[in-house]
């Protein structure tokens, strides 16, 4: 029999510490929807998604009520559209994004991811078409998210694609200038992208995945923060143990929800993504966990070490709680989506350079960072290249989701609303990397031995 104490502990986690399942994401393969006629392909995509995900939202809501655990998002990820659209008789892939958007709205999901291309070793014509379509596609749809994988540990970094993505981000920001460049919040540039990520904006359904699959992303920075408050001043061994135990509980809850959703939707269970995903709400911040470990403010010296411990302990605790772990699995540090990060960045304690260092030890990368609107495409590309290099050399996923906010500069801020939050504009280095980015070509894949 459960004790009253245990029951109340769970209720407090939900009520006061923001414990939730961040997302149930249904991955759907669209490979069967390839057609030479664009309209026929888009119709097939709409039909397949709405058929497979018809009950996704209703099922999520029923589970939410029965278990009394909030499930914040219900989402869909699909096969990278560059693969599905390659056979189509068009070089503008915006109609595919429109079909995805329409299907997402019919299903009632929050986001749909997969307007994507995988170009780590080079671009096909379809990949080029897709990247060229991103600004129009994301500025004319509401729920479609896009990602482009520009590098991997095995292939190196495709610097032509990196250069192209810098220009694409600029273009997209301009087209959504009236919303503070919001379009860029729906676009991620990856190195070592994973095929089973349930989190947006970078989710897509990889080609190694089954016909359809259920992936679940758990969360719970507030629960970890609260648990650490009870071990103030104690050694790091105790800190790590406390985080592990907490992560175990959170993940068991995620695993239960994932299995239940999989059974009810008659869809195979894929993975649980063990991530600490913050929100802008007070008490749901990863930065505050790092500060609870003894840092005056997130971003000061010691932040990288604190984050390394947190990230590792979350994985160690979570991995035993789930039958299949995957996705990004780690602590997220999206600046605009984390109340503590926003405060640290606003005070100047948390810089872009420190954030880059932090991404060496956690998932995922430079995420939701607002930079001045006059940042050049080459500077954006150089930032992407730096981040991709970290992922490539360390055999981990890294990503860049930067928003060059049109018309704004350091000292200003931008509001995206909801889970995407609010961000101060952060400075970038004023020195040019144009000649570096203009070289193009590929950065070769790194050595995997002689590691130093």
């Amino acid at each position, binding site marked *: 029999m459960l004790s009253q104490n245990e029951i109340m502990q769970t209720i407090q986690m939900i009520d006061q510490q923001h414990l939730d399942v961040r997302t149930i994401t249904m991955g759907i393969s669209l490979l069967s929807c390839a057609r030479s006629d664009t309209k026929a392909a888009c119709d097939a995509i709409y039909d397949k998604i709405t058929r497979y995900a018809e009950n996704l939202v209703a099922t999520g809501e029923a589970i939410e009520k029965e278990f009394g655990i909030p499930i914040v998002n219900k989402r869909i990820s699909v096969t990278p559209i560059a693969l599905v659209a390659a056979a189509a008789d068009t070089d503008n892939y915006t109609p595919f994004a429109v079909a995805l958007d329409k299907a997402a709205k019919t299903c009632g999901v929050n986001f749909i991811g997969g307007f994507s291309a995988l170009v780590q070793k080079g671009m096909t014509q379809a990949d080029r078409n897709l990247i060229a379509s991103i600004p129009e596609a994301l500025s004319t749809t509401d729920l479609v998210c896009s990602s482009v994988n520009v590098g991997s540990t095995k292939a190196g970094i495709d610097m032509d694609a990196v250069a192209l993505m810098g220009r694409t981000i600029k273009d997209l920001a301009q087209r959504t200038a009236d919303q503070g460049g919001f379009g860029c919040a729906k676009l991620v540039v990856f190195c070592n992208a994973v095929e089973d990520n349930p989190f947006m904006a970078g989710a897509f359904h990889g080609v190694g995945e089954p016909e359809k699959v259920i992936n679940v992303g758990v969360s719970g920075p507030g629960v970890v923060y609260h648990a650490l408050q009870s071990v103030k001043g104690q050694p790091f061994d105790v800190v790590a143990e406390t985080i592990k135990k907490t992560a175990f*509980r959170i993940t068991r809850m995620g695993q239960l929800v994932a299995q239940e959703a999989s059974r009810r939707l008659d869809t195979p269970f894929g993975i649980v993504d063990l991530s600490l995903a913050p929100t802008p709400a007070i008490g749901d911040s990863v930065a505050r966990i790092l500060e609870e470990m003894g840092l005056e403010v997130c971003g000061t010296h010691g932040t990288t070490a604190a984050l390394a411990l947190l990230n590792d302990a979350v994985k160690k605790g979570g991995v035993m709680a789930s039958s299949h772990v995957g996705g990004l699995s780690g602590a997220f540090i999206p600046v605009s989506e984390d109340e503590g990060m926003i405060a640290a960045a606003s005070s100047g304690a948390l810089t872009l350079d420190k954030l880059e260092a932090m991404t060496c030890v956690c998932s995922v990368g430079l995420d939701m960072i607002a930079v001045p609107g006059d940042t050049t495409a080459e500077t954006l590309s150089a930032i992407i290249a730096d981040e991709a290099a970290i992922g490539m050399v360390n055999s981990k996923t890294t990503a860049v989701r930067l928003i060059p906010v049109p018309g704004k500069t350091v000292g200003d801020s931008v509001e995206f609303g909801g889970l995407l939050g609010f961000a101060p504009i952060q400075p970038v280095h004023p020195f040019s990397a144009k000649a570096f980015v203009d070289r193009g070509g590929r950065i070769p894949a790194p050595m995997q031995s002689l590691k130093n």
Partner: protein
Amino acid sequence: MKAIVTVIGKDQVGITAAVCSLLAQHSINILDISQTILQEYFTMVMLVDTSACDKTIVEISDLLDQAGKERNLSIRIQREDIFNAMHRI
């Protein structure tokens, strides 16, 4: 199916009676009750069996939530599995 009903809020006359009669109306059997008052806050935890219940757990959840709001209490029903998952290996 077993579920946990929790009632949290400021103590007042008739909380237990109200919750128990609502559960009884829908043929939900109470297996165990524990109750404490901490700093005037009433906390009751019940283990219940919903196998003979005439409504779905989602409907019962809505009814309890409604009853709770009328008395300024938080009343919820959750499947026992969630607690077992989090606290038992």
